[in-house]
């Protein structure tokens, strides 16, 4: 017993210790595992939370609320403005309104029809009735204004479905229809500036700055108004005009009639609605005589006083018979050939130049190839085979085609001292002319300007009606008979003021008729110092219609242009004064 007791004592002590140790270690091991597991869970939660916090802290995205709120004011396209900052195209939120007839019973349907007929008397109610009776969803109207939408909304009808979408509007309506173009339903440009500058107009970083054009709304309006009046006076089927700054090629006005209201979204298929200035390719007639004379003067083949003897009244070249438009003297000098618009004289000059030189000269003026321009609607002159007869006909503008824009550009080059320019619709920084390529010399340019001035100022000239006092108008008429037709296409291209040219204006009337009831105001002359009025003219050449229209246009736009260039002229005078 004792032994056992003693042994027990030692063993008990030791074993109990060992057992205790083992139990503790086991418990400890279990608790440690639990603690580590829990701490791992907490730690991972902590890490997740901290990652989220760090992510939120670093994220630059703005909260959903503000984004959603801002959505209402975000634009998709930039505005388009004219040179004075007047809005030509802008974006507004409009509404498409649809009707779900399934949601209505018969009584409600009748009520809806009555309400609609009261609110919108112009609606085709019979058509809407039919659609409602079919019980299928249909669009009641597209592009409704917020006011119209509110009117519908206030009826409290549950069948209406409103769909808000940004849409392009044009406050000037018809005024710039051929230049601005249109957009489609998803607000992408499909014609005009809207198409050619589609990417530029959609740039988000520039969304608040409008696209500034070179056009002037006031000038555009005055020119368009005169063309509409001309359409009534001379019964033309269409007309066009372009006004260009000869020093930098900026287009101040571009009108082509007939035009259309851009806000109406009409799909046009008729060729009458094309942009006649940029896309129309025409035979423009005697306006080409200036180029023949300029080429000859530049090559020093002739001078303004070179006399041409024995000028026949008609010439035959192959199958072509070339005649004078009027009875002209048989002896004319270069200046008189241009002033009196002699076809035979122009042929003689062209024959002196030769095919190669004349073609190169016309090429250097960009008259025979497609021109670079800011619109995609640009015409390409028709190609032809050069020969002796072609040279003869092209000298007076027949058998050769180009766009009115190219013609205006070529005249601008002749008048600005011979520096090459390109027409443009986008405002650029003032370019220095001297750095540009020279096509003709200053001397030739001056000689041409003097001759063109005489076309307008002399009594025997063909453009007397454009001799507007104070503006020193110079220019050349062009009467062309349309291909396969007896109708005419009359053009007058003018440069003013002739002593220091600044603008070139081209006016074109498509198929003008004689206007016997139109009263012509003849300008003062030696015989009639106060001028006189004349009625009953049966001719319909450019001198009797296009020139009159151009004269009226210059008379009206002249003061605006003079005011606009006043600052420039003051600067010029200051510089001139300082240098003296």
């Amino acid at each position: 017993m004792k032994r056992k007791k003693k042994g027990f004592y030692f063993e008990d002590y030791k074993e109990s210790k060992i057992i205790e140790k083992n139990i503790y270690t086991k418990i400890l091991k279990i608790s440690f595992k639990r603690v580590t597991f829990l701490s791992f869970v907490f730690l991972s939660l902590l890490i997740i939370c901290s990652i989220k916090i760090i992510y939120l802290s670093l994220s630059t995205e703005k909260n959903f609320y503000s984004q959603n709120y801002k959505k209402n004011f975000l634009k998709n396209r930039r505005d388009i403005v004219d040179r004075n900052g007047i809005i030509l195209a802008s974006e507004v939120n409009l509404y498409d309104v649809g009707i779900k007839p399934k949601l209505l019973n018969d009584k409600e349907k009748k009520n809806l029809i009555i309400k609609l007929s009261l609110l919108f008397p112009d609606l085709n109610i019979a058509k809407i009735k039919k659609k409602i009776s079919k019980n299928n969803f249909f669009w009641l109207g597209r592009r409704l204004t917020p006011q119209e939408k509110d009117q519908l909304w206030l009826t409290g009808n549950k069948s209406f479905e409103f769909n808000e979408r940004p849409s392009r509007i044009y406050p000037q309506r018809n005024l710039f229809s051929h230049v601005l173009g249109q957009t489609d339903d998803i607000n992408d440009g499909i014609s005009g500036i809207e198409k050619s500058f589609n990417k530029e107009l959609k740039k988000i970083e520039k969304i608040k700055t409008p696209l500034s054009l070179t056009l002037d709304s006031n000038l555009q309006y005055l020119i368009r108004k005169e063309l509409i009046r001309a359409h009534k006076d001379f019964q033309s089927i269409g007309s066009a005009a372009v006004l260009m700054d000869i020093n930098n090629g900026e287009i101040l006005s571009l009108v082509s009639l007939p035009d259309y209201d851009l806000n109406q979204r009409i799909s046009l298929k008729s060729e009458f609605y094309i942009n006649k200035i940029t896309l129309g390719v025409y035979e423009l007639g005697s306006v080409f005589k200036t180029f023949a004379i300029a080429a000859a003067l530049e090559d020093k083949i002739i001078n303004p006083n070179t006399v041409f003897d024995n000028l026949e009244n008609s010439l035959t070249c192959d199958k072509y018979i070339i005649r004078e438009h009027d009875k002209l003297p048989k002896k004319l000098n270069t200046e008189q050939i241009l002033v009196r618009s002699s076809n035979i004289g122009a042929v003689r000059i062209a024959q002196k130049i030769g095919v190669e030189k004349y073609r190169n000269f016309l090429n250097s003026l960009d008259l025979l190839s497609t021109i670079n321009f800011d619109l995609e609607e640009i015409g390409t002159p028709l190609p032809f085979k050069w020969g002796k007869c072609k040279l003869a006909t092209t000298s007076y503008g027949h058998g050769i085609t180009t766009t009115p824009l190219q013609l205006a550009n070529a005249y601008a080059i002749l008048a600005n001292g011979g520096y090459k320019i390109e027409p443009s619709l986008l405002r650029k920084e003032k370019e220095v002319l001297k750095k540009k390529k020279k096509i003709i010399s200053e001397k030739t340019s001056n000689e041409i300007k003097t001759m063109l001035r005489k076309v307008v100022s002399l009594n025997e000239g063909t453009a007397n009606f454009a001799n507007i006092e104070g503006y020193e108008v110079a220019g050349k008429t062009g009467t062309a008979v349309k291909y396969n037709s007896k109708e005419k296409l009359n053009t007058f291209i003018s440069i003013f003021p002739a002593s220091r040219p600044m603008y070139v204006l081209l006016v074109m009337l498509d198929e003008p008729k004689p206007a016997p009831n139109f009263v012509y105001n003849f300008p003062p002359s030696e015989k009639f110092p106060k001028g006189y009025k004349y009625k009953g003219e049966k001719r319909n050449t450019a001198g009797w219609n296009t020139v009159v229209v151009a004269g009226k246009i210059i008379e009206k736009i002249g003061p605006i242009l003079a005011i606009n260039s006043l600052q420039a002229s003051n600067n010029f005078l200051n510089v001139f004064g300082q240098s003296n």
Partner: protein
Amino acid sequence: MINNDKWISSLPNKNSKNYEESATIDHKKWIDTIPKDTIPKDTIPRDAIPRKETYNSFKKYSLMTVVFVCGLIIVSVVKNQTRNLEKEINYLESSIDLIEFNLKQAILDNEVITSPENLSKLAKEYLNEDFVYYKKSQIRNLNNGNEIYKKKKEKIKTKTLNNLSVDIKNKISKKIKTKKEEIEKLQELYENPKKIPVEIRKKVSKQIEEKKFELKNLYQSPGEVITLERIGRWSIVQVFKAFLGIPILPGR
């Protein structure tokens, strides 16, 4: 006699190393059981191995977690505040956008109303006069054409004279005549002072002499001229003036 070996051999695993190890007294083991503070430093043997301080790492980690949690709380507080600020900024931005939007709408309305087409329509409706385009020769510079200006002025004069009635014309002509006669008389008197009567001449000369004398005195002794009597008289006159409503100091 107690046989030690007998007892020892009776013990299990007497030959094992563990037993020997356990049988040997390990003072460190005992020391470790005593709380550290109660052991006097002198009693700890020099070769005693210092115990590892396992609680240090725990402290470190707990401290780190505390700091981290505090950081998280601070970050969340700061973030919350910045979020509030951001909301405020967004609200202001959206209100600016709304104002800009309204402004744009107003500008757009203005563009439509003031478009050249609309203006000319309104002018036709509401203006009586049609606009006339003047030629350059019709506009004359007044500075260069003084003659035209003079002629116009004369024309206006004659027009106004013609418009006056006969009675007024007669009255004006009479007045002009009398004024002319007066001027002629004065001219004659000025040219021939001998024609003026002797009495009048004497009176005038007396008055001139008196004024000359006064001016001389004033210039030589100004103190004598301003006497108490004079001041008294002047003050009485001023009081009377004030009483009657006449300005005391005549305005200049």
